[in-house]
């Protein structure tokens, strides 16, 4: 399976190897194999594969990972530019979860 990668050198992911204890949690939650384990701690294997979902930083018990999280969705960015705050998530975004739904239900937002 060919691996799809997006733009080069834009991702905000940072790993503080001094704080990392090598628990391996980031390797477990990352959906794009961004990390690999060396003998003592995790290191970033492929930064460009990162989609900034934030799973690693949220699940790092030692706060060793920082990333500016967000959904990589042009429609959401456009909605934000137009000040359409009633549509915080993107229109047709599916997150590739093969289950389509993301717009806030109007009444429950």
């Amino acid at each position, binding site marked *: *399976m*060919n*691996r*799809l*990668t*997006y*733009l*080069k050198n*834009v*991702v*905000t992911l940072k790993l503080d190897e001094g704080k990392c204890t090598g628990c391996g*949690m980031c*390797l*477990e*939650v*990352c*959906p*794009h*194999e961004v990390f690999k384990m060396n003998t003592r701690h995790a290191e970033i294997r492929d930064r460009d594969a*990162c*989609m*900034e*979902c*934030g*799973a690693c930083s*949220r*699940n790092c*018990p030692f706060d060793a990972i920082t990333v*500016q*999280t*967000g*959904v*990589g*969705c*042009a*429609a*959401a*960015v*456009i909605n934000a530019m137009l000040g359409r705050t009633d549509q*915080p*998530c*993107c*229109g*047709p*975004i*599916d*997150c*590739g*979860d*093969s*289950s*389509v*739904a*993301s*717009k*806030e*239900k*109007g*009444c*429950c937002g």
Partner: protein
Amino acid sequence: MLPTYSDSACCGATPAEAPEPIPRLDQGFVVGSISTPVGSVPRVSSELQWRDRWGAFKARWGVGRMDYAIDPGLYALGNPDRESPVLVSANYKMSFDRLRSALSGRDVWVLALDTKGINVWCAAGKGTFGTEELVKRIDTSGLKEIVDHRSMILPQLGAPGVAAHTTKKLSGFGVRYGPIKVEDLPAYIDAGFKATSIMRLKTFPLKERAALIPIELVETIKPTLIIVPVLFLLGGIGGPAGFWANALHEGSFAVLAFLSAIVGGAVIHPLLLPYLPGRAFSAKGLVLGAVVATIMLFLQGYDLSIWAGRLGSLAWLLIIPAVTAYLAMNFTGASTYTSLSGVNKEMRWALPLEIGMGGGGLLIWVASRLIA
């Protein structure tokens, strides 16, 4: 009947109403109940009925997908006991249905978090599939009195919203991240809750990309209904013949050209995504749009020996790729690997380019008709 979510919790006339800890037994897909120390928990089967499939089909086409939710809380799949695994999911019915249908012949507990009817990955990104809701739902469902163990399996794609270590601290329940695909769950459970590296990798195969086409098309309907009549009438301006004759000839072509650009952006682009050149989705869309435009111009057969024909060709070589690139750019939200930093960078050049090409092309087209 689909389960009506709208009359419970958040949308009811009495907003202060507390959510029911136990999901209702009269939801369409509930097949019975199982007695627990905290009451009757609804039992579901791993077999999907025609109405589950019909509901999923409709949701794919955007029909009723904002209300495609089940009651949040604990469900029993099969005949789980005090040792059975606990799987956590969203209360989006399609997520829930996919989970239960993948676990045929298994006895497990399913804890559906209140994600407002949104799938796990999106909800995790927004934080509704999150630590707070998980800890609260563990408490209100009475899970501690129903099972003896203290561990749960969460979908890996829920990890952006849930901090495993915090959940453990607050609820006493340890979090194991299961595989990305529900189809891998049985193998994961049988391997002693171990996922292979392939199970942890989010891919974007043809089947998933194709499943997104309906909703991509539906999203274009509203602008199309406005743009199509405008293009048809603009086609009537200028030209060699009368207004309506021009509209029928040139206006119809303009409508077809626009529709071909939509097919390019919403159908062909998702299908060919890995094979189109460039990394930015807009770049892929521009290339694809240029090919579509070339084909459409060949079919139209503008006379390139005169200026009107040359300008007309130029116009559609700008408009069609602009529309295709714009739709392609919007597909970033549906894809599984684009970062927000990347999308911001792409949009900085792509959006002005698409607007410029589209607007400029339209002016050139009208000009070409005036001199024709």
